[in-house]
Every structure is written in C-alpha cells, then in structure tokens.
C-alpha cells in the first residue's frame, strides 16, 4: 500500500502504486503484466528454435514442449513425483529457514558469537552441496532424507547470511530508543531487530526457496531419490527431449508460484516498509 504518493520525474503522475484505494484492481494489473512477461519468455522460446537459432531437436519450441507437458500431467506418476519433490522442498525450506533465522539472530545479536563464527561460516558456505552427494547417499541412501540434507545445507546459508546483514541494518536511534525504555534483549529482538531484518529475511527466504527447489531436483536427478528430478534423469537418459523440457518447465512454474506466495506474505508483513508503501519513480 503506498501512502507516499509522488509525482513522476516529469511525465504523467506515476501510478500511485496501489494507493488509489483499489488494491484489487491494481493487483489484477500486476498479474496481467506478469503473465505478459511469462508469455514473452515462452514466445521467445518458441521462436528461437523455429528460426533455426538452435535445432528444434535439442531445443524444442514451446508448443512441442506444451504437448509433452500435456502428456505428463495426464500421467499419475507425474503427480506422485511432483508431490515427492514438493515434500522434500517444503520440509527442507522450513528447516533451513527456521534454523537460519534462529541462528542468524542469535549470532548477530551476540557480538562474540559473530566474531568467532565468521571464519567458519565463510569456510563452510562455498562447499557445494553437490559435493555432499556421496555423504548423503552414504547416510540415507535414496531416501527423502538425502534430498533433505542437500536442500537444508544449501538453503540454510542463504537465509543465514541475509539475516546477518539484516540485523546489522538496525537503525541506531531506534535501537537506542528501545534500550532506553529498558526493553529486554528478547523484546528488542522481537520489536526492533526483527522488523528491521524482516525485509532482508524475506529476500533470504525467496532466495532460499528457489535454491531449495533447485537442490531438491538436483538431488533427485543425481541420487535418484523419487521426485521430478528422477523423472528428468530418465527423460535425459532416454533422449526424450520434449519430455525433459516439459519437466523443466514445471520446475520453472513451481518457482513462479513460490514467488507469488512470498510476495503475498511480504505485502502483509511489510506494509509499513518503504519498499511496499512507496515506489521509486524513475
């Protein structure tokens, strides 16, 4: 909701972002624009192979992929695989987010912890989760827990780092106000630190959500844990190119849905924030 309305840099007044009292209509416009964007992308993907920039055999046009997708969605096994993937993704993301936020706030709020863990965090973060695949298999085989291990490991860092930076962004005046009113450490976390870090956390969760999806599918792809990834692996080894793209498209669409959800949550929780209440007019 925008409350600070401003005129644009010269042209017609900037659309007062959703501030005209018709949020529903506004959101509708956003949805249409988003669909138009997706449509453009799909159109490009249709045209590129058609004009011969790349062979349609290896990069089938959208219409061909859509056909394959239609085949997929009528297959019971596809939905089972989708469910498996979503389960691994959601669980992993949840664990990573909770752990990342709790540890992040703890580490950031206690300077000693921050000082002593910094090097270890920097050391562990760049270790690719794909390098952990043997470890995961060793521990859990092709169980969903293998997927979870990789998903949690990868997305945890995304959240953690965002939280660390977000906590650092606390306005000193606001924090001093809280301290001077004798707010306890916990209350300061709850009422000052958390709201400040929230925009960062939201970005972190959005990053982590995509990374978790990527890792869930990668794990399934490489380890063979049940899910969309395993289906992609089969399609790949069978040279079923359109099917492969159909499945990849599904992962992309999942990403879009995840982001829609995150944006909805953000609109509710960050209504007070400059980024939600006001828009930069270019």
């Amino acid at each position: 909701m925008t409350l600070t309305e401003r005129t644009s840099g010269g042209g017609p007044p900037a659309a007062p972002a959703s501030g005209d009292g018709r949020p529903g209509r506004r959101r509708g416009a956003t949805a249409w624009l988003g669909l138009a964007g997706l449509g453009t992308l799909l159109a490009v993907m249709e045209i590129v192979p058609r004009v011969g920039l790349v062979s349609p055999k290896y990069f089938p046009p959208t219409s061909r992929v859509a056909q394959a997708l239609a085949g997929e969605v009528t297959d019971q096994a596809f939905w089972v695989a989708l469910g498996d993937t979503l389960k691994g993704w959601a669980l992993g993301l949840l664990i990573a987010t909770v752990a990342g936020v709790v540890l992040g706030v703890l580490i950031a709020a206690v300077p000693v912890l921050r000082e002593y863990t910094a090097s270890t965090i920097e050391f562990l973060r760049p270790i690719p989760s794909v390098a952990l695949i043997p470890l995961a298999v060793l521990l859990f085989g092709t169980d969903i827990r293998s997927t979870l291990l990789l998903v949690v490991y990868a997305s945890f860092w995304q959240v953690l780092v965002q939280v660390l930076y977000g906590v650092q962004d606390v306005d000193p005046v606001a924090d001093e106000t809280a301290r001077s009113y004798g707010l306890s450490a916990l209350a300061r976390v709850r009422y000052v630190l958390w709201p400040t870090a929230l925009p960062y956390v939201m970005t972190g969760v959005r990053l982590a959500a995509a990374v978790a999806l990527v890792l869930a599918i990668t794990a399934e792809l490489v380890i063979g844990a049940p899910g969309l990834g395993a289906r992609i692996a089969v399609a790949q080894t069978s040279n079923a190119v359109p099917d492969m793209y159909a499945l990849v498209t599904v992962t992309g669409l999942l990403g879009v849905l995840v982001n829609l959800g995150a944006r909805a949550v953000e609109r509710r929780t960050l209504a007070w924030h400059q980024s939600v209440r006001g828009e930069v007019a270019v």
Partner: protein
Amino acid sequence: MLDVRGLQKVYNGGARQVEAIRDLTFTLSAGELVCLVGPSGCGKTTLLKCIGGLLTPTSGEVLLQGRRVTGPPPGMAVVFQEYGRSLFPWLRVGENVELPLRQKGLPKARRRELVTEALAAVGLADAESAYPWQLSGGMQQRVAIARAVAFEPEVLLMDEPFAAVDAQTRADLEDLVRALWHKLGVTILFVTHDIDEAVYLGQRVLILSSSPTVVREELTIDLPDTRDQLHTRGDPRFTALRTHVQEQIQAAKRGLPSPSTAGDEEA
C-alpha cells in the same frame, strides 16, 4: 511568480483518509519573502511538497511563472523538515553541499568557492570533511541550509529550517536568509513555528487554519525593509504584529472561524 489555486490534498492510507489541505489559494510575486505559520499538522509540509512538485495535489493547481508544476521545477531548492534524513549519509558534509552544484554543471573552482562560503555562513567551516551522522542535530540542519544557500536557487522553500539550532545561531541564520534574499532577489516561502521569526523575516505572513486547511489570514508586515535583531524586535509595531499572529494561531488551533476569511471558505 508562484500561484497556488484551490489546492486540495487528501491522503489515502488504507482505512485512514486524511484531508490535509482543503482549499488553499494565494500568490507570491517574484522576489517576495513570505512566512507560513499554522498549527502542527495543518498541512504546511504537504503544501510545500505540492509546490515543490514532489506530491500531486488531489485537486487545484500550482503555477510557477505561469506554468503548471507537475514535477520539481529547476532552480528551486527545498530545505526539508526532516533534515537528518535529507542528507546523504554516504557523502561528507562538503560533498552533500556540492552535489546539487555539480548537477547544475558549475565548474569545479566555483563549486569549491560556493561550498566553502555556504558552510562558513552557517558556521560549519571546519565540519566539511565530517559525515552528516557525525554531527549534532543542529549542525545537520545547518548543512541542509548551506546546501540550499549554495545552490543559489530562484525559489527557496524552507520547512522549519531553524528548529534545531540555538537562539543565537538562529538569529544569525535569520539575518543570513534576509541578506541572501536581498543579494539574490530569490523568492522565499518560509515555514516556521516561531511567531517572532515569521514577523521578523517576512514581508507577509500567511496564517493557515488547522486541518482541513484553508488560508486563515494574509498579513502584510509593514516593518521597514532593513531589519536588525535588536531594533526591529524592539519596535512596538513588531510587538503588535506578533501579538496579532499569536492570537490568530491560538484561534486557529481551537478551530474558531476567522472573521477575514470566513467568507472565502464558503466560496
């Protein structure tokens, strides 16, 4: 020069809908210095933002030299009430003052000269290389003033620019504004809560009613053009004027109708 015509501004904040300004009409001629007073929350900042092209009025219009204001017009400088947040925390004080000049395309030497002069004028010659957040509140506000002064604008809008400085500095800055005004012939609209200041500075004082806001009274300050802190403030006419303004503001705050504009309000 500056025409405000039937200006209305309604803020639409979800459930909360505030008619900050109902209907404002007044005119500033070129080179005038007009002070604006009114109760807290009556819409002075809102008005300044509309004039500055930063906010779109709900209805009515602002004309600057006959042209309708739709975005920030060139050659206008604004000193914001939230002085602390209007300074760029990543630029040093000197750079903060210099930035708009650079944008104006002035040569380096001239910029340096203006920056040094302006900072000296507000008594901050030695703070040039500090960051804004290393300064006290009053010093920050003076940096914002220096920035506007160095810019040498044609129109200067100031929103309670001296709120955070001590009495003595305030007096000096008041004289600085008048000196600048004489020197550059700039048109100034000056918001203040200090009634003495309004009377001391202005050629006219605009008194606003409380929200939803209309112009309650336009008062011409018939004091001689050369003013100084000691004599002007000692002048009985000064005392009479300030008492009048004070009464008007008191009445405005209590929401009493003003005899002089009660008719206008209906129009």
